[in-house]
């Protein structure tokens, strides 16, 4: 089974769970006066879940067939090329993004961002340390100034233990 049908199966599961919530569990807590309404909070989700399950079945069972191979479109990626892809780098960068999300508040904007930009370049194979640190430092300063001073959105610059 091709990847798109496996994903279809997962989506089918999501819609089934969603439908279960809409049909069986949601209405329990509905206030009596709202039950006299023609429309309940669960009405629209019920419709969506039925449609979703139907379309999901169409995908999983492969009822709709494409009659031509994919167009010559550079924005389309063929997942069979997956082995040629640099998945490791992508995974590391995603991990770095998660680390950034977790460190942004405790470590402060300046440290987190300089670290993120430098580490990102390192993961991609860059080794010119001085250039990286200078570029990252300037960019961090500019973005902090734009966000905090120009846009007026609070960004804590320094680590939490150093005040503000």
């Amino acid at each position, binding site marked *: 089974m091709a*990847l*798109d049908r*496996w*994903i*279809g199966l997962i*989506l089918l599961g999501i*819609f089934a769970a*969603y439908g279960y919530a809409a049909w069986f569990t*949601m209405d329990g807590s509905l206030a009596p006066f*709202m039950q006299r*309404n*023609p*429309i309940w*909070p*669960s*009405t*629209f*989700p019920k419709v*969506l*879940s039925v*449609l*979703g399950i139907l*379309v*999901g079945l169409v995908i999983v069972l492969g*009822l*709709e*067939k*494409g*009659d031509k191979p994919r*167009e010559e*479109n*550079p*924005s389309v*990626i063929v*997942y069979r*090329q997956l082995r*040629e*892809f*640099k*998945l490791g*780098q*992508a995974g590391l*960068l*995603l991990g770095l*993004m998660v680390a950034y*999300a*977790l460190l*942004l508040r405790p470590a402060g904007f300046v440290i987190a961002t300089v670290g*993120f*930009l430098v*580490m*990102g*370049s390192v993961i*991609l*194979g*860059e080794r010119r340390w001085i250039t990286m640190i200078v570029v990252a430092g300037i*960019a961090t300063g500019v973005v902090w100034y734009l*966000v905090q001073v120009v846009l007026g*959105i609070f*960004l804590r610059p320094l680590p939490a233990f150093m005040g503000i």
Partner: protein
Amino acid sequence: MLEGILIGLQTAFSIQNLLMVIGGCLIGTFIGMLPGLGPMSIIAIMIPVAISLGDPSAALILLAGVYYGAIFGGSTSSILLNAPGVAGTVATSFDGYPMARDGKAGKALTIAAIASFCGGSIGAILLMIFAPMLSSVALLFHSAEYFALMVVGLSAIAAFAGTGQVAKAIMMTLLGLIMATVGEGALFNMPRFTMGLMDLQSGFAFITLAMAMFALPEALYLVMDPARSKSGQSGDIKDLRITRDEARSIAPVIGRQSLQGFFIGVLPGAGATIASFLGYAVERNIAPEKEKQEFGKGSIKGLAAPETANNAACTGSFVPLLTLGIPGSGTTAILLGALIALNVTPGPRLMVDDPQIFWAVIISMYIGNLVLLILNLPLIPYIAKILAVPRNFLIPFILFFTLMGAYIGQNNATELLLLVGFGICATILRFADYPLAPLLIGFILGGMLEDNFSRSMQLYDGVSFVWERPMTLGLLVIAALLVILPSYRARRARLRARGVADGD
């Protein structure tokens, strides 16, 4: 209408808004030139900036400028590097890149700029004519018709997804719709599908979703597939002039493609991509035999056609957004989200309630086109230097800007984790060839769709509004046909190919 135009002129020519147009076009060109970053990613990144401006006209003008700039920048990288940033400029590279290889890069860029300018300007004139007409019709609509109209819009997007793709596009739309039901809606004062999590109480944030659906997967692809981000010296760009003969030969092409592109752009789901490919194909078919040979080898007509068509289509896609409040493409969906965040609801009332926004956007389209022509074109040789920025520096910055965009919109670090999670899902979905734009459009329309549905249910005390209102029924029938017809025709074509006789 004249009054409206005057209000628009007054708003658009304020110093602040002029700077917005110029800034937007420059930023758009700058980023749009980077291979792999399309207008959707750029607009998604710019949204927090636009929203924090606080003034809806200025925000929309900025974003529209970015949109134009990005398309112009995208054609520049198609011509110079044969690396189209977006699907909409793929057709540009067919003839643009051969021209650049022949040392006529300057001329190719000029033709692209002029074609874009004409396509965009003619599109804006058509928008001025058609949008008020459509919006006066739309004022007759009730919530039942609105509901039906949105269903038509959503199914048209699915129907234009191409053979073998209709079910996937519908699936993505439905996924967007169910994501829109998460959280506490205005209609019922109860949280739905939050699984008891406080963070989901207000639903998913639109900016986070937009970043995760477009900007992040693009950046990840650049990482995974280094061939996509080939950077290099674009060589010297000189001799930007075109001769009078050349101008004369592309003039009819520009005229035809402006009209065709605009009307394709108006259709929901068919956007700049379809318009540019169709424009290229049509011009090749009607060209004289001698010129037909040149297509694909550096024909100026082959370059002018898709460039005109994609800009006209971009302008056309504003028609359903501004008059009906229904976005026909991923980009206009993002614009709609930004407008809603600024407390402006596009739709037929927009012209009546906020004429300054409506007209200022249209006027600023002209200004944007002019800026691209007179400011950007001479600067192109310098802007093209950005193509030489090494990807080792570029990619961390793109990722950082997506993170910042999601963070300053919500000021919440949990949002960043959601961004990464959705980004991974979106990347996997793209691997499996699921279109992502329908998901975002479904997400943005979801709230309005449900509101209108619920209102009609309450007014008619049940679903009887479907058959009691002929227009609603008609629109819903159209929606059903849009979904069923492509698969039916594909099936018949397959049967015929197998030699099975069909009915007629």
